[in-house]
């Protein structure tokens, strides 16, 4: 029986068995639910149902002032809250026509890249856990704790760091960062090496990941993929290179890509990207040290932010892909409309097409490798 790949699952059709996975299932990352129609162990069709973590962030934003919305953005992609904060702040700054001082840009870059590393560490670690490799997860999570230590020095929060202010930053990079960074860098590299040794050429790992859920670049672009999942398909697109914002055009770094867009490629791209992030932090920190001590961290911003009426869209490359904010202002102190463009929203909608004809166990691997974060998916 042939069914539309993306249509709803019709229950009781033919000899297929409908299986409900999630929303409360350890492998479904919190609140994702998939209703899969199966023939034996093969998925004939999967119908993801989302919205279990919908908190009405966009509606909330319309009723809060511009500054009050920053802590809400923490709760989008809670694995890398700093990138969300910066993306939102950048959108408001664009709306107001504010240029952020260079020193603040450098601190933002350093913190964002640290957040990117932390996000990738969680993603590849959890991917291992979901496929039965528990040990590498601990190697990664220990290093993530070290990164969170830096975040904690900055403003006391570890997970939901309300980072920065509109127009710049309120505080400088923590002083202890200078002595922390060399050790932290080695630690991240060591964890990646250990993971690489344990997994990459492991026979079981290769069997479980290579050739599982391959995706063609044409399909990926048609579905609106961005970030590591798109690069794993072999498309060399990264907003940091294609549309450089802040000082990213001055740094020397590569954009790692995969070939087949399968689970293995997504894992490898993320692993390699961590190394590139370390390179960026090294260069940014060097530039930061060359800055005068009393360089400004914040542009001149009025106390009550009232941008002129207008609408802008601004995006940055978050660990998952393009994270954009569309803000429409009506001239008052609250945004008229905020639309968040979360990267994994676009990626997850292709999920039925990706897992069609695969095994149920591969469905779990696929979901894990896409790094779907329910917080930014449901908003």
């Amino acid at each position: 029986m042939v069914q539309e790949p993306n249509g709803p699952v019709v229950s009781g059709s033919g000899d297929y068995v409908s299986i409900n996975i999630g929303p409360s299932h350890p492998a479904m990352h919190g609140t994702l639910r998939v209703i899969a129609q199966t023939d034996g162990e093969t998925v004939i069709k999967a119908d993801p149902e989302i919205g279990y973590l919908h908190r009405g962030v966009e509606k909330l934003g319309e009723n809060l002032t511009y500054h009050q919305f920053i802590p809400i953005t923490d709760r989008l992609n809670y694995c890398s809250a700093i990138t969300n904060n910066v993306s939102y702040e950048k959108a408001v700054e664009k709306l107001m026509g504010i240029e952020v001082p260079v020193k603040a840009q450098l601190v933002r870059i350093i913190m964002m890249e640290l957040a990117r590393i932390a996000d990738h560490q969680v993603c590849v670690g959890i991917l291992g856990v979901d496929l039965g490799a528990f040990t590498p997860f601990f190697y990664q999570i220990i290093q993530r704790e070290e990164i969170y230590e830096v975040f904690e020095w900055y403003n006391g929060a570890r997970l939901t760091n309300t980072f920065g202010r509109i127009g710049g930053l309120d505080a400088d990079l923590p002083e202890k960062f200078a002595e922390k960074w060399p050790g932290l860098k080695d630690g991240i590299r060591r964890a990646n090496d250990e993971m690489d040794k344990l997994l990459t050429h492991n026979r079981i790992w290769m069997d479980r990941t290579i050739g599982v859920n391959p995706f063609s670049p044409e399909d990926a672009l048609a579905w609106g993929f961005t970030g590591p999942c798109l690069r794993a398909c072999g498309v060399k697109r990264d907003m940091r290179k294609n549309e450089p914002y802040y000082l990213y055009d001055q740094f020397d770094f590569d954009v790692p890509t995969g070939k087949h867009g399968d689970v293995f490629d997504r894992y490898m791209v993320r692993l390699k990207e961590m190394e590139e992030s370390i390179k960026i932090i090294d260069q940014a920190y060097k530039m930061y040290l060359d800055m005068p001590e009393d360089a400004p961290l914040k542009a001149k911003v009025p106390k009550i932010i009232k941008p002129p009426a207008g609408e802008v869209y601004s995006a940055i490359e978050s660990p998952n892909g393009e994270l954009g904010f569309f803000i429409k202002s009506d001239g008052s102190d609250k945004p008229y409309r905020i639309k968040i463009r979360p990267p994994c929203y676009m990626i997850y909608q292709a999920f039925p097409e990706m897992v069609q004809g695969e095994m149920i166990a591969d469905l779990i691997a696929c979901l894990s490798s896409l790094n779907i974060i329910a917080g930014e998916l449901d908003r």
Partner: protein
Amino acid sequence: MRWGLAMDLKERVERCLGSDALSITEYRGDITVEVPRRRIIMVLKKLREASDLEFDFLTDLFGVDNLDLYKKKKKKKGKEEEAEKEAQEPTPPRFEVNYLLQSLKSNERLRVKIQVPEDDLEVESATVLWKAADWPERECFDMFGIRFKGHYNLKRLLMWDEFPDHPLRKDYPLEGKGEERHFHVSEF
């Protein structure tokens, strides 16, 4: 350099769309082109296929409710002008749908906007051009009640199926209308 490029894009879009471009505005480097609602698929196709534009990537699609915006304008006018004059003015369409496009070749971005009046909430679905329009259109239907003609699976995305209202509309209260008290779990 950047501003120069933006100006250039404006001209190219104008040349490509001709009379379909009702207005082209630029704000902080973002170009927005407003087009007639019924011609949207034609316009998107044109923008995608024109050799000097090639907007072949759909970044996002979303709705905006302009109800409060017009209310505010009316209030301001009310102080200056008579109330009778306002009643005669035709009300502008309440909703708008925005399409964020990007060109993979030149990395340029363009926002295409259509106006959707409240009494005829129907727009042609962009899923024929991009698969990526699937969930954004469902969300737009969920949040604003705008129906997309030709969408193969137009049902609620974030709210549950029995939800009676459209929560991102400006006349929907922030605290809700108590729907969660009448929530019942549908049979799977």
